[in-house]
């Protein structure tokens, strides 16, 4: 619904006021900003995409402000959704400035998990026109019976950093929240702000259904340099830490006033921070570390230090990819391959804020083949082949959470709720049977609990509407909204009380009091674990384990691996990286074959410890892991044996004492996409993977409750773990919707089923090159040193026990 014609004199006068304010800042509205303002006035939805720091916020808020000048109204007008709580404060300030400048009598408030009680009280009274909040806090607002009243004057929603949310369960939750808002207030516009993505149309459709795509100014020029090995320098063929490059990195850091060093995983960041600290000649407090498991307060202090220029070097992970601008950063260094085109572009954009100068990034390869990845990333950036961020299919766990929210926020009727939920992209394909199964779970606790009315969360009233009758259910639900981001982690804090952050339970469960570990750039000693908190003290000596975070390593993106295959095959590539790589590629050509973009290379090599089969589909480590398991399983049907496997981003290795004889034809059969899904089921211990995945599913769906904030009462004290629940449900209620959800997440996310299937189809259509090599080729070597990830035994518990007993007896007899 258009609110005012952009050709009207009143609108032009209002716009002139906005432009006048721009002029006082010494700027002029960019064409994309004015386009966004006009589209808002026309009542349209839209998505604005532009690099960070180019004025997206003002593009989005301008329209609503002009609207407010023309039609002043009290009550909540604009909802601003931001993915990070820490960004909410900054954003609220930024928006307040614009509101004041436009002389609009709006009150700006933020509502996040860490709002003060004063802010919350104001909000409850409805004392604000612009509310800055997170997807979880929106869900919370919708869970109160007065939700309809609160949003009755809403003119629109702006979702900031939509690209950060789209591929996550939080994005799904937000889609559901927006569907609710749209039902309450059909004329509200929905706008998103996003970095440039490979699938902007899809991003827009997922957020708003339809609307306009508005592109911002082009990003800065990006200059990618590489820390090349010196001629004659021995450079490793494998590895991912890259610490041998420390002198080069240190020199590069010290050349400038302040530098950001990006690592790919939190463990790698900890190790690099430690390595830099050990050779750091500057004051110790000028070197810091920043990653997602470190306590928000410490992270904030680091960000503040970067902004003020008191820090000379920060080692960070993708936790610093997002949001806040650091104009004082002079140099960005990337350790290892960035694994994605968009990520490298984003990180490079962190430096060089001086106008007219390009952003510069120094890439530090950790092994030789990464030289090619860097060159490929540079080519992909030049061509702007960026990765898409695919929206998730709606999960049943998020659905369960949302249905309870609907029930609390005034109740719902099943058919209407199904239609409303089906209006989102995430749940457009949701079968009614699954919707009903989730409803059944909430209503009766699943089939096995049907006879116990006291455990029912949802109650169906006489009028057919679903609601919640128990105050306890309501309270627990509101407390557990927002747990999507939390993972099964323990707080780490000093005995005296200062908090350091969180590490995963699985890591801490291996430690005993007195054990040492490296965390948040400190050497710590575990004192005790109590109430989901690990109490530590500073360790007297520097030695100990580095926490490993689950799922730390990103797979090589599809865009980058396509470009990589082309780059490797490009015989006369001009890049310095490829010249440095030339001797290695020559070795590969001589001993085996260098695959062309339409080829899949298969090598077979006999080593002292057995036969190895190497396959190089270049499809990323997740897809390779699934493929390796399938291949091992298919081999075991040809010839019964124990097969182990290893994977990396380029390919996979299968090993056995003796592999069966193979020909091109048998290889084609082994790599065929037929029966892929059933072969995956047969080859991978899906149950075990699903059991791990179930933890998050159970928490999001409210099956387990994580405890009151700040109170010590936890699921742990109830002595029930999600793993135990998983086993019990499988036994007594095997069709439970949450079990199904966990398995689907394993296939979709952990094994990247879609990419695996695509890769096999490509292989079936393309050329297969099979080479038997006398010794390990340069491509094969990194796989050979990679730890074995898994394997296939055709067995059950009975034969496992027999085998283990036999092994034990042999060991005892020796």
């Amino acid at each position, binding site marked *: 619904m258009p609110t005012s014609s952009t050709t009207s004199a009143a609108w032009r006068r209002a716009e002139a006021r906005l432009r006048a304010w721009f002029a006082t800042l010494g700027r002029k509205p960019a064409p994309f900003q004015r386009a966004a303002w006009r589209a808002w006035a026309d009542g349209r939805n839209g998505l604005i995409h532009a690099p960070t720091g180019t004025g997206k916020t003002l593009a989005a808020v301008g329209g609503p402000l002009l609207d407010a000048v023309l039609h002043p109204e009290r009550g909540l007008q604009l909802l601003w959704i931001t993915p990070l709580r820490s960004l909410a404060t900054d954003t609220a300030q930024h928006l307040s400035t614009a509101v004041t400048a436009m002389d609009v009598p709006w009150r700006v408030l933020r509502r996040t998990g860490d709002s003060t009680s004063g802010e919350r009280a104001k909000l409850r009274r409805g004392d604000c026109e612009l509310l800055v909040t997170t997807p979880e806090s929106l869900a919370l607002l919708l869970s109160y019976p007065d939700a309809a009243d609160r949003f009755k004057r809403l003119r629109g929603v702006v979702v900031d950093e939509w690209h950060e949310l789209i591929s996550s369960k939080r994005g799904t939750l937000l889609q559901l929240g927006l569907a609710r808002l749209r039902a309450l207030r059909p004329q509200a516009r929905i706008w998103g702000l996003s970095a440039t993505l490979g699938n902007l149309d899809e991003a827009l459709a997922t957020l708003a259904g339809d609307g306009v795509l508005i592109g911002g100014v082009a990003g800065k020029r990006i200059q990618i340099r590489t820390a090349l090995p010196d001629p004659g320098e021995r450079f490793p063929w494998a590895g991912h830490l890259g610490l041998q490059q420390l002198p080069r990195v240190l020199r590069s850091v010290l050349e400038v006033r302040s530098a950001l060093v990006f690592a790919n995983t939190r463990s790698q960041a900890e190790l690099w921070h430690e390595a830099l600290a050990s050779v750091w000649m500057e004051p110790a407090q000028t070197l810091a570390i920043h990653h997602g498991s470190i306590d928000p307060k410490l992270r904030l202090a680091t960000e503040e230090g970067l902004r003020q220029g008191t820090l000379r070097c920060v080692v960070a992970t993708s936790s610093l990819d997002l949001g806040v601008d650091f104009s004082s950063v002079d140099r960005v260094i990337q350790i290892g391959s960035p694994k994605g085109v968009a990520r490298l572009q984003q990180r490079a954009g962190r430096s060089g804020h001086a106008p007219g100068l390009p952003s510069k990034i120094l890439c530090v390869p950790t092994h030789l083949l990464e030289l090619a990845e860097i060159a490929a990333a540079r080519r992909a950036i030049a061509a702007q082949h960026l990765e898409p961020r695919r929206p998730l299919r709606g999960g049943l766990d998020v659905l369960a959470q949302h249905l309870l929210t609907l029930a609390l926020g005034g109740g719902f009727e099943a058919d209407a709720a199904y239609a409303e939920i089906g209006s989102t992209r995430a749940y457009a394909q949701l079968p009614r049977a699954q919707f009903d199964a989730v409803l059944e*779970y909430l209503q009766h*606790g*699943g*089939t*096995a*609990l049907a*006879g*116990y009315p*006291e*455990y029912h*969360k949802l109650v169906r009233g006489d009028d057919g509407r679903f609601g919640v009758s128990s105050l*306890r*259910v309501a309270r*627990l639900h509101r407390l557990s909204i927002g747990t999507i981001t939390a993972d099964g982690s323990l707080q780490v804090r000093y005995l005296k009380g200062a908090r350091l952050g969180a590490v995963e339970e699985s890591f801490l469960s291996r430690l*005993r009091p007195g054990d040492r570990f490296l965390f948040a750039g400190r050497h710590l000693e575990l004192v005790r674990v109590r109430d989901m908190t690990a109490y530590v003290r500073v360790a007297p000596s520097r030695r100990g384990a580095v926490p490993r975070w689950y799922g730390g390593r990103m797979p090589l993106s599809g865009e980058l691996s396509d470009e990589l295959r082309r780059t490797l095959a490009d015989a006369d590539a001009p890049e310095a990286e490829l010249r440095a790589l030339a001797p290695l590629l020559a070795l590969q050509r001589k001993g085996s074959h260098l695959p062309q973009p339409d080829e899949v290379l298969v090598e077979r090599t006999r080593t002292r410890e057995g036969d190895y089969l190497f396959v190089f589909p270049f499809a990323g480590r997740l897809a390779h892991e699934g493929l390796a398991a399938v291949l091992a399983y298919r081999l075991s049907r040809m010839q019964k044996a*124990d097969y*182990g496997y290893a994977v990396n981003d380029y390919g996979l290795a299968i090993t056995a004492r003796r592999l069966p004889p193979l020909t091109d034809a048998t290889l084609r059969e082994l790599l065929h996409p037929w029966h892929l899904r059933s072969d995956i089921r047969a080859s991978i211990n899906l149950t075990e993977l699903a059991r791990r995945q179930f933890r998050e599913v159970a928490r999001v769906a409210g*099956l*387990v*409750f994580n405890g009151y904030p700040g109170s010590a009462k936890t*699921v742990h004290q*109830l*002595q*029930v*773990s999600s*793993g*135990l*629940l998983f086993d*019990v*449900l499988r036994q*007594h*209620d095997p069709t439970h919707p949450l079990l199904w959800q966990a398995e689907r997440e394993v296939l979709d996310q952990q094994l990247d089923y879609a990419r695996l299937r695509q890769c096999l189809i490509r292989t079936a259509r393309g050329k297969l090159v099979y080479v038997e090599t006398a010794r390990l080729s340069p491509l094969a070597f990194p796989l050979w040193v990679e730890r*074995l*990830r*898994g*394997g296939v*035994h055709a067995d*059950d*518990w*009975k*034969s*496992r*026990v027999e*085998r*283990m*007993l036999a092994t*034990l007896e042999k060991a005892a007899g020796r």
Partner: protein
Amino acid sequence: MNEVSMQVAGETLELHSERALYWRRERCLLVADVHLGKGAVLRRAGVSVPTGQTATDLARLAVLIDLYQPQRLIVLGDLVHGDATAQAPWLRQVGEWRRRHAAVQMTLVAGNHDRHFDARSLGFDLAGEALQLPPFTLLHAPATRADSYVLAGHVHPGIIVHDGWRRHRLPAFRFAAHCGLLPAFGTLTGLHDERVLADERIVAISPGGLIPLT
């Protein structure tokens, strides 16, 4: 294999893969940490676990009683998980089960979970904190006694068993020099793994049977 015999403090103990231990000379069947009614406690706390554990666990005990025909069943603590209202359905099931096995003497060594509940109402004798059956002292929480070998429960012992590239986390019997630990009998119980001591004898319990590890 479902049964393994083991010499402990000069006596022969038979370990069973249903997480029970039979002492044939005294005709005693020993189990620990049964946690009856735990499902109900969890459901009351809002965790929707399916029903049926109590029935399953009682049936498992019945099978063991049929198999060994013991004179006495001794529970090393934590017979019930929490407070129970008189009309709790699982309590009725336990009562019926007890009447079916009226000939068997049943004794409870008090555990930390048993303080809210009077097991005498179910026809159990209360042995207090410790039950002396030389050469053994039966306790709930493990401890060392100078004069006798301790058999205890409480910790829900588990062990990680490596099988090639795989690792399995399994419940286990663990016998150290002066103290032996029984696995938790209840279906709805978790595991706690401790470091293995050098002189410990461990028998892991897999779905495919017992695995003596040392």
